[in-house]
């Protein structure tokens, strides 16, 4: 079966950033300036995506996720390499391409800001030339998923961030696209809204067999939705494969955040050494002091019980405050570089 929806082959996007000068005079001189710095936002990546897949495209901030999405949706022209979406070059024929895809960009709504929600749907119906039967059917389905009816008459600008995101996501499925791109759909939302959004995405994928590419820097999103993930960092793909392997590894990881009273340079190194001496194994426990004033102790629960570590830390150092969080994307990336998936 060959049902490739997205074909990416040695794709790159480089931004040339001008070192700008001040004022209008500077701006005019800038037009002729050659004082550039190159940012390799996406650097030689390759992958294929099959119809019906939900793929998690994940990586820390600035990894190149949005840039990839912008190329796939035809906003940006690739600097190098091949990119085909549904067999077309997105950039070369934006209008035709847009007809077969849906896009949601994080916190930027594409609905009509001052108009009631339902009017945005009507306008989209007209833009994509959706016939009445399909329109009614889809609205009915959205209603079951989201209780959209309650929001119909509200102007978009009056919706909460979560409501708006739900409307944006469902709207992107209105014209029955082959593929939908969701760039950070859960950014800035609280836990209950996140889980709502995840279930809506799952349902929409199931109902229409729509291919979905979802970017996020939250591992929780992909755990709930994707079977396959692609991890990108500094423009390069560092993992592409089943999520199972990654969750098996990182699902057990937790980060113990502690605030140490009178923290001094070197305290974290001493702590790491002490933990190593007490529990053994260096992959299981990493200690890092962050700029926010918290010290992060990352623990692999499969190897060391979290609460033993916590007790030990509290006995060793004067602790003001404690939090337990899932492993951060940055940390996952670091572990992969250190050979965790090998």
């Amino acid at each position, binding site marked *: 079966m060959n049902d490739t929806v997205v074909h990416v082959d040695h794709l790159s996007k480089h931004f040339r950033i001008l070192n700008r000068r001040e004022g*209008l005079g500077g701006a005019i001189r800038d*037009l002729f300036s050659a004082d550039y710095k190159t940012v390799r936002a996406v650097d030689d990546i390759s992958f294929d995506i099959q119809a019906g897949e939900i793929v998690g495209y994940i990586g820390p901030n600035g990894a190149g996720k949005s840039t990839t999405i912008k190329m796939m949706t*035809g*906003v940006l022209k690739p600097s190098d390499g091949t990119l085909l979406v549904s067999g077309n070059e997105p950039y070369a024929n*934006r209008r035709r391409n847009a007809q077969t895809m849906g896009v949601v960009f994080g916190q*930027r709504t594409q609905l009509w800001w001052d108009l009631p929600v339902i009017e945005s749907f009507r306008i989209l119906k007209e833009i994509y030339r959706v016939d009445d039967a399909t329109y009614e059917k889809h609205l009915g389905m959205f209603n079951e998923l989201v209780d959209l009816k309650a929001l119909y008459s509200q102007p978009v600008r009056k919706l909460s961030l979560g409501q708006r995101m739900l409307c944006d996501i469902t709207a992107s499925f209105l014209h029955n696209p082959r593929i939908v791109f969701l760039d950070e759909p859960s950014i800035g939302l609280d836990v209950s809204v996140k889980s709502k959004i995840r279930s809506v995405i799952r349902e929409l994928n199931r109902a229409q067999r729509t291919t979905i590419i979802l970017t996020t820097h939250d591992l929780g999103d992909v755990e709930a939705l994707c079977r396959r993930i692609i991890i990108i960092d500094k423009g390069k793909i560092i993992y592409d494969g089943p999520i199972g392997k990654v969750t098996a590894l990182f699902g057990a990881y937790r980060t113990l955040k502690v605030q140490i009273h009178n923290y001094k340079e070197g305290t974290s190194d001493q702590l790491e050494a002490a933990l190593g001496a007490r529990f053994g194994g260096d992959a299981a426990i990493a200690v890092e002091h962050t700029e926010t004033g918290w010290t992060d102790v990352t623990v692999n629960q499969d190897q060391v019980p979290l609460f033993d570590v916590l007790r030990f830390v509290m006995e060793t150092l004067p602790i003001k405050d404690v939090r337990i969080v899932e492993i951060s994307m940055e940390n996952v990336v670091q572990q992969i570089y250190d050979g965790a998936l090998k």
Partner: protein
Amino acid sequence: MRTLLHYVRLYVLIATQYVKARMQYRADFWISSVGMVFTSIATVFVFWVLFHSIPDLAGWSFDEILFIYAFYLLSVVPLQLFFDNIWQLRFHVVEGSFIKYYLRPINMMFYYMSDMVDLKGWVQLALGVFMLIYASQRLGLTWNLWRLGVLGMALFSSSLVAISILTIAACATFWIVGSFPVMDLALKIRDFSPYPMTIFDGFFRFLFTYLIPIGFVAFYPSQFFLRPEQVPLLTYFSPLMGIGSFALAYFVWTKGVNSYTGTGS
């Protein structure tokens, strides 16, 4: 044809929704309309004062100037009504919100411009029509079907020139950070368009006729009605000038859109 119909339907749909939404802020509509009327009256007043100190401005009477000014008001109505979002371009480009306009299967310029429907244009239209009728009565101009046709054609051409000049100026933002001065300059230059071009000396007349053709916004086309016996040959090319300048503006827009890379977030 089918496409054209599609766009018309789409525009009407969006515009009516905007009107409905805007009507909920009636105060805002009336305040800005009143502001617009006052601005126009103030401009006429300046003309009037000017004419009372200098009885004829390079051979142009007050009523003729009023006619040209009315023509000018009418020719910028389409800009007001359909291209008002051009003023927001710099903001969208700098903020990165511009990328949403790449994502729909419709013409980008259409999509962008349809995203703002400004009602003040209708007030300006009424004001322009009123002034035009008043001035032509004082001048003893008679209107027949043929002349109305010519007026329509002339206004169509002029409005394209006005739209193009501002569109091109706004597009500077795709290449220049802090492009406000460009837009501001275009606006200041546009403000010269209701003046008889004959009051300018060689250099400026050349500039405003060929390079930044604001002469075609109001002055040259009005000559058909005011002084048909001395219409400069060039005036017959107004429609070409209009279409040509819009084609150029569309080209610049497309170039800008394709060179835009968004913001780094």
